[in-house]
Structure formats: C-alpha cells, structure tokens
C-alpha cells in the first residue's frame, strides 16, 4: 500500500481554525477552559482534548517587514516515531496509511511517549474509574485513521476551505511541496519543505514560510538516542526477563535515568497541566 501524508501549505492558511473545530467535532473532544494568551491563539500547544492548534506568529523578517504567520500544528506521524519506540506496552503502532496511533486499551498512562515526542504533541489525560481511582491515558491526533479506513480524508483536511491542506500519496505531496516552495521563494526567501530526515521523514509534510525555529519547531529533530537504546535493547531484554506486567515498574526507574529532560517536561506528575 502506498504511503499517505497530510500536506500543509501554511502560506495558503488564513487562520480560520475550522480545522480545530472539525477535529473536535469528528473526534468528539470536549472544549477546554482557555486563558487569554496575549494573542488570538487559543492554546499554547496541543493537549489531550485539543489535537490540533492553530499557531499565530508575528515575525519581523530580515528586512524588517512584518509577517503574520499561521500554522496548523498537530501530530507529525513520524516514520521513525519516538513515541512508538518508547511505549513499554506496545500501545503505539503504525498503520498501513503511515499514521501513528495509540491503542487506548493498551495504554497505561506512563507518559514516556509524552516525554520523548520531539514535537511535544502528545498529552496525558486523567480519568477516574468507577471506584474513584485515577488513571491516565495518552492522546494525540490519529490522522483520523477511522475516517481513512472508510475512504474519507482527515476531518481537518476536508474542512480546509483555502486548500492549504491536502491528503494524498506521499510522493505526489512531496513533489507538490517542492514545486510550491520554488514558486513562493521570491515572497518568502526562507521557505522550505519540512519533512525532517532525523525521524525518517513525517506523514505530516509542511511548506513553511519561514525557518522551522520561527514556528517553534526543531530545525533537525531526531529520535532521542535514549529511546533507541530503550526500544532496541533494554525493552526486549527486560521483557524476556520479567514479563510484561512488571515491566512498567522497571520502566519507571529506567525512564528516570534515561529520559529525564531536565524538569521542563510533563513527566511523572502526569496530566494536570492539561486539566
């Protein structure tokens, strides 16, 4: 099966946010309380209940001219996905479409995927079971895999009225992106196709108007070495030795050693950032 990608040309986006509403509508996600952020942006980043966020950026370009930039931000669906690598329960997997999905039945809410996502798009949500015990699950954009299976396109793509988003075969979309970049270079000298090789390429491919850092994106994101060590070495050995259930406990210890990002993450305390 051919690989598919979501193509996003941010230079055609007018920031209407219909993609945000369409996502909530299809995925039945609740509204969140939002604070005033000092711009028209509603959320600082994606959350467990808001899987895509429209970024609004006021940027002064090298000539001193003002650019007002918009970007639909959501999961990149990496070809080499750190979240998939670090999940101790194998709850995260690749679909035939190229999308990366979380199996909610398998997820134990450990939060390693949250810590290791190079784009910070995954979040934990806290729930209470019928005994009043709290448990957590991690959430992110599914690329509307349930729609793809029915021959539909992702909800955000369907609703985009300027054609800033398309969903199609990877080769075609990359060619389209490259062509577009060559066309608009006069207007946006720093324009580029964002499809970072450090994560094996992504299934959300952007035409950016500016350098990735202007959008708060890593210039050259990589799957963390620790994640590779974990997935490819520690986890298989661990599972052989201890069995899967105990593995989560061990994982807690290992993660502290391997994945601690220096206190800025949303790690052990879990999801209260997003309530």
């Amino acid at each position, binding site marked *: 099966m051919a690989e598919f990608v979501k193509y996003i040309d941010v230079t*055609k986006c*007018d*920031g*209407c*946010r*219909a993609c*945000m*509403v369409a996502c*909530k*509508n299809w995925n039945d996600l*609740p*509204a*969140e*309380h*939002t604070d*005033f*952020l*000092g*711009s*028209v942006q*509603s959320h600082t980043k994606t959350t467990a209940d*808001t899987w895509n966020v429209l970024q609004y950026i*006021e940027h*002064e370009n090298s000539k001193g001219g*003002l*650019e*007002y*930039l*918009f970007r639909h931000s959501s999961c990149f669906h990496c070809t080499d996905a750190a979240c998939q690598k670090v999940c101790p329960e194998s709850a995260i997997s690749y679909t035939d479409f190229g999308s990366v999905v979380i199996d909610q039945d398998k997820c134990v809410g450990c939060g390693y995927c949250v810590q290791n996502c190079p784009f910070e798009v995954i979040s934990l949500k806290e729930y209470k079971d019928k005994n009043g015990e709290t448990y957590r699950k991690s959430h992110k954009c599914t690329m509307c895999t349930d729609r793809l299976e029915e021959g539909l396109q992702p909800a955000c793509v369907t609703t985009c*009225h*300027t*054609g800033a988003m398309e969903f199609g075969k990877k080769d075609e979309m990359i060619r389209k992106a490259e062509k577009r970049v060559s066309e608009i270079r006069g207007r946006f000298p720093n324009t580029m196709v964002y499809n970072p090789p450090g994560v094996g390429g992504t299934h959300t491919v952007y035409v950016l108007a500016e350098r990735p850092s202007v959008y708060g994106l890593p210039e050259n994101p990589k799957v963390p070495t620790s994640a590779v060590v974990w997935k490819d070495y520690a986890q298989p050995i661990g599972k052989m030795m201890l069995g899967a259930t105990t593995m989560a406990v061990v994982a807690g210890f290992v993660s502290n050693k391997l994945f601690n990002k220096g206190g800025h993450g949303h790690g052990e305390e879990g999801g209260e950032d997003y309530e």
Partner: protein
Amino acid sequence: MTNHWNDLQHTDCALIIGANPAENHPISFRWLTKAKENGGKIVSVDPRFTRTSAQADVYAALRSGTDIPFIGGMINYAIQNNLIHKEYVVKYTNASFIVKEGYDFKDGLFSGYDQTKRAYDKTKWVIETTEDGKPVKDETLENPRSVFQLMKKHYSRYDVDTVTAVTGTPKDDYLKVCETFCSTGKVGKSGTIMYAMGTTQHTVGSQNVRIYAILQLLLGNIGLPGGGINAMRGESNVQGSTDFGLLFDNLTGYLAAPKATLPEHVTLKGYLEKETPKTGYWSNKPKFVVSLLKSWYGNNATADNEFGYQFLPKGNKNYSHINLFNAMYKGELEGAFMFGTNPVVGGPNAGKEKEALGNLKWMVAIDLWETETSAFWQTGAGSDPSKINTEVFLLPASASFEKEGSISNSSRWMQYRWKAIDSKGEARPDLDIIHELALKLKKLYANSPKSADKPFLFLDWNYGTGEVPDIDLVAKEINGYDLKTGKLLKTFGDLKDDGSTSSGNWIYSGFYPEEGKNLSKRRDNVDTGNANYLNWSFAWPANRRILYNRASADPSGQPWSKEKAVIWWDAAQKKWIGNDVPDFKAVTAPTEPGGTGAFMMNKDGVALLFAPTLNDGPFPEHYEPFESPVPNVFSSQQLNPATVIIEGDFNKKGGKAKYPIVGTTYRVSEHWQSGSMTRNQEWLSELAGHMFVEMSEEFAKERGIKNKDKIVVSSARGEIKAYAMVTKRFKPYNVNGKKVHQIGMPWHFGFKGFATGDTANRLTPHIGDANTMIPEFKAFLCDVRRAD
C-alpha cells in the same frame, strides 16, 4: 455584490478595504487563493495588519474614517496618470453630461445647503437637458461644466501628500496601492473592490461606497468578471433581509416606503409619479408596486381603493435603529418585538439602549437563547430588577438547520435549505411564530369597527389554517401569479400595474416559474461557463450572475477583451449571448436606441459619477467622523453637514482632550455579530473566549501597559474592561505631522453564554450616516488605562 463569490477567482487585483474577509468572510479566500495562483494581486487597506493583510501583496494602513481621502487620491492618481478606461467612461457613465449652473462646491459645502435643516436642496444639482429631456453631452470631456471636469477638479485637491497626511498612510505604501490597483484600468484586466462594515458604518458610509463605485467606473471595472463592487454581507441572510424590506425606509424589492412628510405620497398616483423615473428600467416601478399591494392585500386591493395603498403606514419620522431607541429612551414606545436581535450587545451606545428597554411596558424576544437583550433587566446586566417594570416574554426559536426555507447570500443567490433535525423543546421557526400571531390577532380584531384596524384585517393571509404555515405557498407568493389564470409568473417582465398580477418581491420574480419548479432548490454544480454556474440555485434578478454585464462589451457589442468576456452581441442570431444571463434586453442591438445603455436601471442608461440623489452631495467629500482627534484638512466642515445629530444625554460627545485615542470595532472568525449564537457554543467559546483590545507596542509603552494586562477603555458614553493585546500589527499613524494612536476591539461580547466579556458598544456613539442612519461604529474617541 455586483459579482459573486466564485467570480473572485477571475480578478487581477482585489482591493480589500473596510473589510477583513480572511477572518470574517473566510470563504472568499477559497477564491482569492485561486486568483493569486493565476497571478492576481491582493491589496489590503486597513487600520491594522489583519489576517487579510497577511495574505496580501500590498498592505497600507489608514486611520479609521478616512476612506474618502484614500480613494479620492486614487481617483486623482488615475486621472493624472492617464490610467482610466476612457471609452468606457465616455459611453457608460455620465462623465460627458453637462451640469447646470447652480451646482457649486466651496469649502466642504455643495450648493443648496440649509444650515438650520442640516439638509441640501438637491434641485441645485441638475444635469442640463435638451428640449426633449435628453442630457446635454460633451464626449470630448473637455467642457469645464462636464461631470468629468467637475469631478477632476473636485479630486485634484486629493493629492498624494494631502491624502497621506490625513489618512496617516506611509506615502510609499500609498503609491504602491495606487499603482497596483489602477493598473486594472487597462483593457484585458479587471479589479474588484471588496468591502464590508468597515466601509459603511461611518457618518459618510454611503459616500464611502459611492467613491469606490466612481473609481471602479473610471477604471472600467464594473460588469466584468473579477471586477465590480462587492459588499460582503456579515451574516448568511443579510442580503435576503434587505431584499425583503428589512430596512426601515424600504418596502420589499428596494421600493421606497411611503412617507407622510412627502405631500405626493398621499395618494398611490402621487407616490408612483414621484418615485418613478420617466426612462430606464425603474420606469416599470408602478408594476412592481401594484403587484406587491396585490400580494399583500389580495382581493381587498382593487383599482377603486388604490390597491390598498392607504393600508400602508405612512410615518412622519425617521424609523432607523438609532431613532427608535431614542424614542424608546424618551418613553414614547410601549412595546417591542425583538426577532433574533441583541441591541444590548450589538446596538450603538449599548448602555443607553439597555436603559431604553426599561421604558417599555412589554418586550417579546424571539431567540435561540436568552440573550443580553431579553435579560437586560437582570443583575448580570447591571440592572436592578425591582426597578424595571417591563414584562418580558421569551419565545424559543428554531435554528436554521431545524427549519426549511431559503437564505440569500452576498452573491444574490437564493438557496433553499431543508430541515436537518427537529427543534428542541418548544422552539419553533420564526415563520410559524409570525403565522400563528397573525391568525390569532386577526381573530381578536375580527369585529373591530375601527378604521385603524382595517389594514391588519384586510391583509391577505392564506398560508393554510393550521398552526404551521405552508412555506411553499409563501415561496410562490414571493414569485407572484398571473391572477387571471392563477399561474405562476415566469419573469418580472410579465408584471402589470392594473392589478392582474401579484408578486411579493419583484426582484425575485421568476425563481418559481411553474408548479414544482422552485429554482432556489437547484444544485447542479456543472460549470456553465466562466464559473457562473447558472443552474445552481437562483440569482436575482432574472438569474443574472454578474450585474451590468453589458459593460463587459464595447459599445459595438463585442467584448473589450477575450479574457474578460461575459456577453456579446451575436448579429446572426440577433441577440446577446455569452456565459451569463444578459443584464440587458436580450434582443436590443448595440446600434438600436438604448443599445449602449449598459446601466439600464438608471434614467439615461449610464452609471452616475455625479449622483444628485444622495443627501450629502453629488460627489463624495471627506468629513471627519463625529468624534475625531484632528481637524478636517479639506475644509472647515468638520462633520458631514447632512448627518442628523441627536443632542443631549442620549448621545454624549467626547473631545480629543479627554479621549485622544481613535477606537474601532470588528469581528473575529469564531463569533457571529452579538455572539448570541456563537458564545453559546463551547467549541467556539474555547477558541475565542475573552474580550480583548488590540493596541500597538508604542502605545502600550506610553501607557505602561503590558501584553495580557487588564485594562479599562473609556469614552464619553461609558467604560469597559478587557485584556490588552499588544501587537506589532497596529502602528501609530503620522497624521499631519502628529502621532495618532488607534486601538481596536471585537464587539461580540456580553454577560451571557460560555464566553463572556464587556460589551464594546457601550463605547460607541448614537450617530449615523446621512443617507441610511447606519451607526458610526467604526471610528470614535476613547482613552485607555491599566485596570489596577
């Protein structure tokens, strides 16, 4: 719109002024994006850099309320640099007409001004005619009394330096706008002007639109694909509501409401003589009026009783929103119906409008939710319920997807919609509510001997006898019937003035030409040529998609250019053909009399550069807003001399000493109008949940305000709290060497719903345009301070 949404893709340049379609009319950008892909340019002119500006090739800032200098300067630029489409101007406008002595213009005043009445005697603005009533012309345009020369002289005062000193636009940006847009004067090119409430909501609102029209006519841009004057309506059915007589001074189909103040209006004969021009398509007006009366009064309308003309109310006042609320404030109104309207958020000087509501004995609010207006008496509104005696009834209404009917969009397309889901609870469609109310009132008054009750009793109301009206009968009544045969009319061309036809709205006649064929239900999305989609829904009038399309062809009937062809004369078939329905008599050859009259609605078949019909002058002239921080550079007339001023407590005026900052209001994508629908939607409230005020970094620094601070904005009318949104997208203006700051804020918020916040309109004044009385929401004076 003269053109339509899809047609925007054909433009070579879209000048977007007084509008922010990327945020407020996003669907336009589907088509503008295509225009850009085809090499079209976008020019955005706005007090602040918006998301529309972000998509534009050229952006220019202007201070709110200076559209006339901005466009007047472009007219001057186009004339001085010879960029106008001269043949178009000579043949299709009144540029060549000679203006009679008596017309004059001095220091901001046209001749005929009466200071005590604040009104003009328009008989001083007259075109010279020959003995047989034809206009005297000079097609060389050299005669100093020609419209063209008078106009050229008028706008020669609008030179680039003066203009930019008034508007505060950086000169380089201004020249870039002139150059980019005026390049569409070339044959083979077309430019469109897209506008919205940023244009109209001024004391010079009508003249703002007029000056856009003048520029477009000079560049030969009317009637062409990708051209035109395109008003983007702020709500999906605003076009429909004005078509159907929502405006206080109109009956349906843009026929004037009779007035007690005009002696001619005492009889139908007098009204028709006064309102009907001798030539042009409006000479058919008696047919439209009599057919309308027949549709309203049925068999009770006869030749003997002037077709029921005397049943129509003939008021002696101005019944605009501002005046109605002034009357309410003075305790002159007993009751009010509020159908889906929320003046406590959306009205000007909204604090005063809320107070005015307390003077009503009763109010009936028909809405989807309890709004700030139906809850005006609650403590949440800042009211003391024990002191308010108004009895308020709230009738729950159905939402658009809970009922059947049509909406008319900005493209003039009447599109039928079907009910998707049942209404919740007791909610009912507006039509059902009006229907039942009418039936019950008719029963209540059935035996009344009073003549004042007759108009209501004689009203023909035959939409079925049950509680639910037959909406199809309403649709057919709008289209109209041949009353002799009982058959539906095929076109408004068949309307008669002898009482033998009926039509509820002549401009829509033909949308339902035979039983079972409601054309507004058509959904054929095959492109019939040049994206006009003639078989999709129905566009009034007569399914024409581009108005004045005769002007897309030269006087001989051939397209000015292949690129911009719409209709052309086919000599073999002896008729006009093309990719649109001709907005012209289809069989009138270019060589016949009237064969070049591209603007056939008008008396002489031409468009009016000189328009002696408006209340405030035949040429648009700049006056400062009611509240302005600077004197008018162009004349000693500070404010539009023909606009009505309400003195006193109802309309307090602020001065620049206390309120030095220019304020304006606008909308965000997520909220609609007063927000009564959208602020009750959780997903939309989550995205735009807070009242904010946008201001420049420079201004914030001067006032010690940081981004996200809580601030207070005050005007002579009131004050509100909001969050500060400090942005690079607002910049101070250099107005005549002085720094002028402007701030802007959304007007959606109130105290009901999920997303709440203070109401911007508590700051805005009770003053309106000299022609329409649309309130001046878009430019007022205020001050800003930190809340702590």
